[in-house]
């Protein structure tokens, strides 16, 4: 200790006076700790007057509230030299400048955080106002069911907005504290892009924007990576484009892939080095361009700084925390990708993202397609029809394209007369002369029940399902169109008959014959889930904790429960432990019963732990009714 003190020449302290006149130590360096003999925490909590008063020190006023104290060790440790030595001014000034810069930075951060708090309180208050207001309106019109329903819908919208705010903040905090981890799991790029399209299209449609999603060259659809975080990146960027583009504006989204060698050759890396490193990699190339309000060059510099928002976003009442882009940038960096933003105020913005992914091992069976057979495409959108035709040609089929329903029906009548019917009809989004489902209904009659009719559409299937199946459509292929989806669906239809056993057609089945065990300790949550499940008709039994669940399972006949929904954090026994015990039971259904984890802790670690405990899948709280039903129908029908 002593020797340490000997080695230190100066120590530095910064004190700050608040608005009430109270002074506290804001900053202290190692030197100050050594000179005073306190550790840093004690020093920061100490009364500055008590610490500084009996020490020789030089006082430098930094601003009206802050003072820099330079403590001298010699005077304190060397009783013989009982005077304040002349400070080395050069060093002092240098350190002073460093401290000033540090202070400025701290103040900037403080300001940004204050701004954030102010924004957040506004952003939180807005949906909260809606929730409180709508709840009051609902209560005052409690007899008017439709009015109450309207209020509840608005409350739900406001709540989900609030939830996304909280999620953003949590994500940012995870990033800040370096707790963000990425998963490495297999996912389908086609499914992911379709999911994104289903999320963002209605938002764009609400603003009457033309959102176009184009798919370029895709080498590999099955990838390894973190689909959740990838979706977060893409939804954030496209969602921002929708938010910051005026009603009726244009948003163009493009997806493509570069195989790793292509990409690396552009980067001028030596071929020998690239091969081993990149043979199983592919780069996803994503671009989102809009003609929205754009950004100033000044803002563009700070776009990835947390809590920053475009100046006029607030005035135009666009909701947001200013965290989205910062999260995106962090995620892209962690994925070892790159993000480039170009923008011009009043003209629009263009976000380009490149991300590397590992190609998932190929384990798909070869598709059984009627090679050499003709297939009729009825679609007035030339670009989409050309894409379909190219994919079909890759599958060994001969595409015939018609733009109108009248031409399609003429061609099919002739084909039937001449006995060269195509293997299927692919219906696109639009026809020049009639709605596609009108054509489907007639072709179903003309060509008979066995003739496969596929609908390729960017609309949400759940919205179309009733009308489409009534018109005679056998299967649905979502847009943006992927070759694998198209050919797989076609293969299923043309070779194994009409597969009615898909998830799209099984909704609305009564699940009255099935039994579900809900393991949840909080009564209100039990009530909510039971209410959400009641529409399906499924019989629900409730266990109050993990131990209760194990007992209930143990005391039931084999196969009694078809599904278990398991909370994680519960008293007596948690969900992980309960699942482990159920899986260990010596009975046939213990290994097979489908167990779904329900938890608010939707971190990668939680998911991993759930899987390790023997749970089959995971849903996060608050429970999404659609998600709940999707699991039920998928597993039980």
């Amino acid at each position, binding site marked *: 200790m002593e020797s340490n003190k000997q080695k230190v020449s100066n120590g530095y302290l910064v004190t700050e006076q608040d608005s009430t006149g109270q002074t506290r130590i804001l900053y202290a360096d190692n030197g100050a700790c050594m000179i005073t003999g306190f550790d840093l925490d004690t020093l920061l909590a100490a009364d500055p007057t008590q610490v500084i008063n009996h020490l020789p020190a030089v006082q430098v006023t930094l601003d009206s509230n802050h003072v820099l104290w330079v403590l001298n060790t010699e005077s304190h440790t060397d009783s013989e030299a009982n005077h304040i030595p002349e400070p080395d001014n050069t060093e002092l000034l240098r350190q002073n400048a460093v401290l000033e810069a540090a202070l400025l930075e701290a103040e900037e951060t403080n300001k940004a955080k204050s701004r954030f708090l102010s924004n957040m309180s506004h952003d939180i208050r807005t949906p909260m106002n809606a929730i409180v207001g709508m709840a009051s309106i609902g209560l005052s019109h409690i*007899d*008017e*069911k*439709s*009015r109450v*329903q*309207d209020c509840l819908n608005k409350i739900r919208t406001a709540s989900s907005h609030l939830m996304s705010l909280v999620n953003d903040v949590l994500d940012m905090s995870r990033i800040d504290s370096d707790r963000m981890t990425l998963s490495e799991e297999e996912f389908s790029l086609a499914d992911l892009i379709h999911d994104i399209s289903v999320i963002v299209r209605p938002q764009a449609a609400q603003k009457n924007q033309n959102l176009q999603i184009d798919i370029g060259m895709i080498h590999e659809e099955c990838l390894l990576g973190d689909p959740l975080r990838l979706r977060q990146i893409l939804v954030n960027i496209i969602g921002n484009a929708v938010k910051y583009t005026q009603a009726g504006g244009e948003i163009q989204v493009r997806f493509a892939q570069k195989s790793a060698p292509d990409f690396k050759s552009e980067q001028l890396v030596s071929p020998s080095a690239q091969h081993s490193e990149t043979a199983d990699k592919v780069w996803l190339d994503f671009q989102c361009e809009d003609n929205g309000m754009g950004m100033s060059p000044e803002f563009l510099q700070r776009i990835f700084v947390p809590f920053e928002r475009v100046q006029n976003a607030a005035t135009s009442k666009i909701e947001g925390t200013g965290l989205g882009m910062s999260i995106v940038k962090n995620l892209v960096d962690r994925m070892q990708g790159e993000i480039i933003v170009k923008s011009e105020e009043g003209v629009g913005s263009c976000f380009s993202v490149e991300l590397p992914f590992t190609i998932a091992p190929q384990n798909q069976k070869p598709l059984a397609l009627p090679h050499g057979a003709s297939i009729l495409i009825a679609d007035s959108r030339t670009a989409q029809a050309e894409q379909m035709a190219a994919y079909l040609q890759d599958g060994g089929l001969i595409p015939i394209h018609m733009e109108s*329903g*009248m031409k399609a*029906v*003429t061609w099919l*009548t*002739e084909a039937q*007369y001449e006995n060269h019917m195509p293997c299927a009809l692919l219906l696109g989004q639009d026809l020049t*002369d*009639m*709605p596609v489902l*009108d*054509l489907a*209904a*007639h072709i179903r*009659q*003309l060509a*008979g029940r066995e003739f496969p009719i596929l609908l390729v559409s960017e609309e949400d299937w759940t919205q179309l399902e009733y009308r489409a199946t009534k018109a005679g459509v056998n299967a649905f292929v979502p847009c943006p169109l992927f070759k694998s989806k198209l050919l797989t669906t076609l293969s299923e239809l043309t070779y194994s008959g009409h597969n009615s056993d898909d998830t799209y057609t099984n909704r609305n089945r009564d699940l009255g014959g099935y039994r579900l065990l809900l393991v949840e300790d909080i009564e209100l949550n039990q009530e909510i889930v039971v209410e959400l499940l009641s529409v399906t008709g499924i019989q629900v039994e409730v266990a109050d904790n993990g131990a209760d669940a194990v007992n209930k399972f143990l005391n039931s006949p084999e196969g009694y429960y078809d599904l278990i929904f398991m909370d994680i954090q519960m008293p007596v026994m948690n969900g992980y432990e309960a699942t482990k015990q159920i899986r260990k039971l010596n009975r046939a259904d213990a290994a097979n019963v489908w167990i779904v984890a329900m938890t608010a802790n939707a971190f990668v670690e939680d998911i991993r732990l759930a899987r390790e405990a023997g749970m089959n899948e995971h849903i996060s709280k608050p429970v999404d009714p659609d998600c709940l039903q999707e699991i039920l129908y998928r597993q039980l029908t």
Partner: protein
Amino acid sequence: MQPYQEEYIANMKEIAGLTARKKAGNLTFEAFESEYLQSREQLELKIKRNMKLLRDQLFPALDHLLETTPEILKELQDFAGKLLHGQSTTDSGLFCLIHQALLNLARLTKDKNSIIRELYWLGIGRHNQCNKVMGLEFALIENYISAMRLCFMESAAYLKYYDEIEDLETRGYILRSRANISLGQFKNPSEKIRLVKQTLQILQDKDYQEKAPELPWDRYIYMTHQQMAASISYSKTAPMTPEDIADVMESVYLIYQRRLQEALLKNEMPPIRPAFNYYAIEYYCGLSNLQELLSKIEHLMDSADLFDFSTDNMYALISLPAFYCQFLQQYPERIPERKEYIASLYQRILDYMDAFPETSENDTLFFYLRQLAHTFVETENSISYGDFLRKIMMRFTPETYVHSYMVGNAAAVFSQIIISEEPNYFDDMAHIKTIQDLKEKQQIISDYAMKCGLYHDVGKLSFIDLYSQTARQWLEEEYELAQLHTIAGESFLDTRPSTHSYADAALGHHSWYDGSHGYPDTYKRLEHPNRQMVDIIGLMDWMENVTGIRRLYTGVEKTYDEAVEEAVALEGRRFSPLLTTRLRDREVAEQIRQALADGQREAYHQLYLEEKHSMKKEHS
């Protein structure tokens, strides 16, 4: 035909008589009302009998078509032929059902000639349905048009195998189907004109003609020219290209010349319809201006004879004014100088309608009047649009008028009960909120309820044969079609100042309170400040429908007490709890029952007075 088929046809004719307006003659009001009520009873018996005939005989026959004999098939075709006869629509729904079944059979047996024939007839049936929905927004009716066009198109596709098809009649069906592809509305008039032009080229091709000289080629070509000439009406929705106008012009001249020669030979007046087309095409070509065109139309209308009930004269008196008003709607600056003329024009039309004899031309008269209702120009000098619609309802669909009046009367009584308990109940309507005096408020609400009731079903004018002439319960397809009466009603009422405030009642009276069911989707209850009144109209309409004559078409049949019970059971879902709560009160329920009964009697009384008024007009 089989006996059940003969009986069904005979019943249909009787039903047409039973649902038609009754002549007052020298009858007292009581006798007049009694005649209506007796007709209702007979109608009920006839409809029930028809349902039994179809259930016991026709439907089993259609189910077993594969095992049936050629004779029975021929009888079915004959029966269907009687169901849709030229201009006079009888039962196009059943017509389509039978031909759809016959088409399915033909497809199963791969009988090409039958497929072509049945496609043609099914297309004709669908065309009839398209005529019903004419005037509605294209997007709403596009599926009916597509269904028709696809039938004709598939049949016409066999043109490629014309030489291989030996049956002459089948060749005729192919050519007629080809010509009919261009029937109905198109998104783009150029598409229609292109198709008609192609058809003309095919029909004029000597190669086709020589292979089937027995076919009436001249008639086919002339009718196709007529279609081309009729395309002129499309110019109102989208501009035509110069090429389109040239094509239409050629057909218009050809038809005009031919009709003129025919008239000269018969020593008759030059025909009016081709003359109008002739003038119109001159206008579209720039050979005359709008002022000249309007003057020429006025001349044609003025030259029509008020006592001539022929189709051509009817066209001049009613259909031509519809086109005339359409031009005025497009160029409203031409209206002020013609206010008096327009008023006299409508008056003449109403006089003509009153004097019109009960003949088979009644359908055409109604068709033209409906056309006029779509293009009606409302001025302060002329009859109000609401009164015009009311007169058409009374004349052509008296039972709908009676129903509407009953609903209006019951709604007025119910709204009075509510407002006496809750004076602010209707205050979502801004103009009601400002009224301080309760008596004045009550009066205004009562009038408004009455009018909403009176006009809520005005859209049924587009589906008159479904609502007033159907001889049986509706088929599923017809039920879907009938639902459009809400949108049709709104489109009638919304655009004219005198009826605008009743449009929501027409649109929303079949929607459910909680939005979970009902129709149309376009009615969003909470967006309408007059939703409380629409709720009342919806409830009263339902009560009258399930207890009145309409129950026969939908199959939902209840006594009044059962209806009250059911309405209460549907509280918060179909009906507003604020209404059903009151309906629980037996006294209120009884007042509503009485209001419906009083409304019925008053409606018949008004019909009686209207008939007396018509008689006077007829005699004078």
